[in-house]
């Protein structure tokens, strides 16, 4: 295998581009894909202050690395979830990387700062852990960005993530979610812009990028992710991709080009008429926002609770 650019020995093949790359040109390829994505979707301006949601995994660390390489003023934001060894390790990976690139890592610890961790809080609030976790991330990333004066929050969702979410939404015709599935969520009063600059890069490419850049990342999965539906969708898509390279990218990007606008009005209706949360001030449809309700339940002692059961996962 020879590198498409320099004809030197290749270290990776990217079949959907029908291309092989050496380490140097693969890294350049990843940078170029992100640069194009940012331009194409007008995700951010060169002088924006950028906050990258960092988990210690391959995607978020690669994203931070790429944005810094492209010259963005990007800081990291790490949220400690209190999920046993998994969280202890993810903290190390995130801090080590921040040290290495001399980046600023903003840290929030759910237990120290909000009074609960995901395993215990979710049980007390009678929510699925991933649902409590997703809600906490959305709320706290946004709050940290507002308080820190950032223009945009970036998350490391890659092509496989988005294609899998799309497949899940299509299989159930979740039209509301389909309308919201876009790599850019514009800023609205009380909400900072959120973008996903990795949507042109596959999960395998992000892992390869980290290895080739010498980025140590957490390979271990969060224990709560075991056996979730999302992973099954990814495996199904990889099965199709193996026989027909490019299908995943076409599935997601052609959806954005040709179909996503058809669903947008559905979701916009939901956003109208937001009020300020009585407790934290963030926009909400109820009197108190979902996160403040979660905090209240998750920090209550188990004896004085009477809360409705709310199961099922949500994804950010």
């Amino acid at each position, binding site marked *: *295998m020879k590198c498409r650019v320099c004809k030197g020995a*290749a*270290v*990776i*093949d990217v*079949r959907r581009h029908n291309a*092989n790359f050496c*380490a140097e040109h693969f890294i350049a390829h990843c940078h170029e894909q992100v640069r194009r994505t940012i331009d194409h979707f007008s995700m951010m301006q060169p002088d924006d202050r950028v906050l990258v*949601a960092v*988990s210690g*995994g*391959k*995607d*978020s660390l690669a994203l931070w690395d790429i944005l810094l390489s492209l010259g963005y003023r990007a800081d990291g934001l790490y949220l400690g979830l209190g999920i046993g060894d998994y969280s202890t390790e993810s903290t190390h990976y995130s801090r080590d990387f921040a040290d290495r690139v001399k980046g600023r890592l903003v840290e929030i610890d759910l237990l120290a700062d909000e009074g609960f961790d995901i395993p215990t809080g979710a049980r007390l609030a009678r929510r699925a852990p*991933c649902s409590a*976790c*997703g809600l906490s*991330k959305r709320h706290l990333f946004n709050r940290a960005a507002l308080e820190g004066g950032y223009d945009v929050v970036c*998350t*490391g*969702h890659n092509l*496989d*993530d988005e294609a*899998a*979410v799309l497949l899940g939404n299509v299989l159930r015709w979740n039209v509301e979610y389909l309308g919201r599935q876009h790599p850019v969520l514009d800023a609205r009063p009380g909400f900072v812009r959120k973008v996903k600059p990795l949507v042109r890069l*596959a*999960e*395998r490419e*992000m*892992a*390869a990028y980290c*290895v*080739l850049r*010498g980025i140590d990342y957490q*390979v271990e*999965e*969060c224990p*709560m*992710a075991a056996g*979730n539906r*999302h*992973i099954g969708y*990814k*495996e199904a898509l*990889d*099965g199709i*991709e*193996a026989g027909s390279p490019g299908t995943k990218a076409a599935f997601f990007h052609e959806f954005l080009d040709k179909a996503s606008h058809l669903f947008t009005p559905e979701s916009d209706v939901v956003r109208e008429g937001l009020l300020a949360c009585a407790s934290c001030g963030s926009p909400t449809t109820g009197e108190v926002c979902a996160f403040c309700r979660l905090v209240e339940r998750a920090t209550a002692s188990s004896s004085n609770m009477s809360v409705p059961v709310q199961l099922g996962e949500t*994804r*950010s």
Partner: protein
Amino acid sequence: MRVHALLDRLDINRESVIVIRGDTLVPGDVLLLDADVVEIRPVISGGCR
């Protein structure tokens, strides 16, 4: 045996893994020697970022 043949034999989809030898990647067409030690690392994750 070549990397791709090894993955096929193990019934592993090449889209779902990277293969690492030492500190770098091994592409699919590389011939592995008996003494080679490689890591086949899954890349699929739960999707929460």
